[in-house]
């Protein structure tokens, strides 16, 4: 179990290698990577990620702990960036490692669903002469509710 909230980019391959290293019981690693998406077809200058230092780490740790209690996980990793990111840049990742693929898949989806609704991050899109806070989605609440 490990969490990082950072402005720096991350290396997905290295993170997965570190997760699995030395544990011969891991048969499956599932990762999710969130990327800055330009829904306007080219007008996005950057995506600003704001968060609530202190609460962020605490919220992510609780979500990770809940996943660990529910599925057979050998290891997990959450990294979320903040600051100004460009289109295509990596925003965040989760990785789950398990003996079995079903656990790894479900735990990764669970982590993502809870992270979306419970971790205090906010996205602001910067355009040439305007800015827009990204709206939260009703879908995200529904996705989270399926686990309860």
């Amino acid at each position: 179990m490990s969490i990082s909230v950072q402005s720096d980019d991350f290396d997905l391959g290295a993170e997965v290698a570190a997760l699995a290293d030395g544990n011969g019981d891991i048969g499956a690693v599932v990762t999710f990577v969130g990327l800055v998406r330009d829904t306007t077809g080219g007008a996005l200058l950057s995506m600003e990620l704001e968060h609530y230092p202190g609460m962020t780490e605490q919220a992510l740790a609780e979500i990770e702990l809940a996943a660990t209690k529910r599925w057979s996980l050998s290891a997990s990793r959450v990294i979320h960036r903040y600051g100004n990111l460009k289109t295509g840049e990596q925003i965040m990742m989760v990785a789950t490692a398990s003996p079995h693929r079903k656990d790894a898949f479900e735990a990764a989806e669970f982590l993502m669903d809870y992270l979306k609704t419970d971790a205090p991050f906010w996205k602001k899109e910067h355009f040439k002469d305007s800015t827009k806070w990204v709206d939260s989605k009703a879908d995200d609440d529904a996705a989270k509710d399926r686990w309860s």
Partner: protein
Amino acid sequence: MQLDVLYFAWVRERIGIAKEQVSTDARTVADLVKELSAREERYQVAFQDMTVVKVAVDQVLVSLETPLGRAKEVAFFPPMTGG
């Protein structure tokens, strides 16, 4: 009671500051919102629709009816959009 009150994202932008110290006798989060809204229009604008404002007391998500008790830090922000 002395509280650190924090604002994030568009709540912060509407109120114009990220953090302030507030002296209050508010019993619940809802009382605090009422008190701040009565103070200046910028608070009223930020808090006009509390269905789209989330609250954390001492860094834990709570509802508007939560008593402040011995809270040290209250934060207001929009629904999260990370990931």
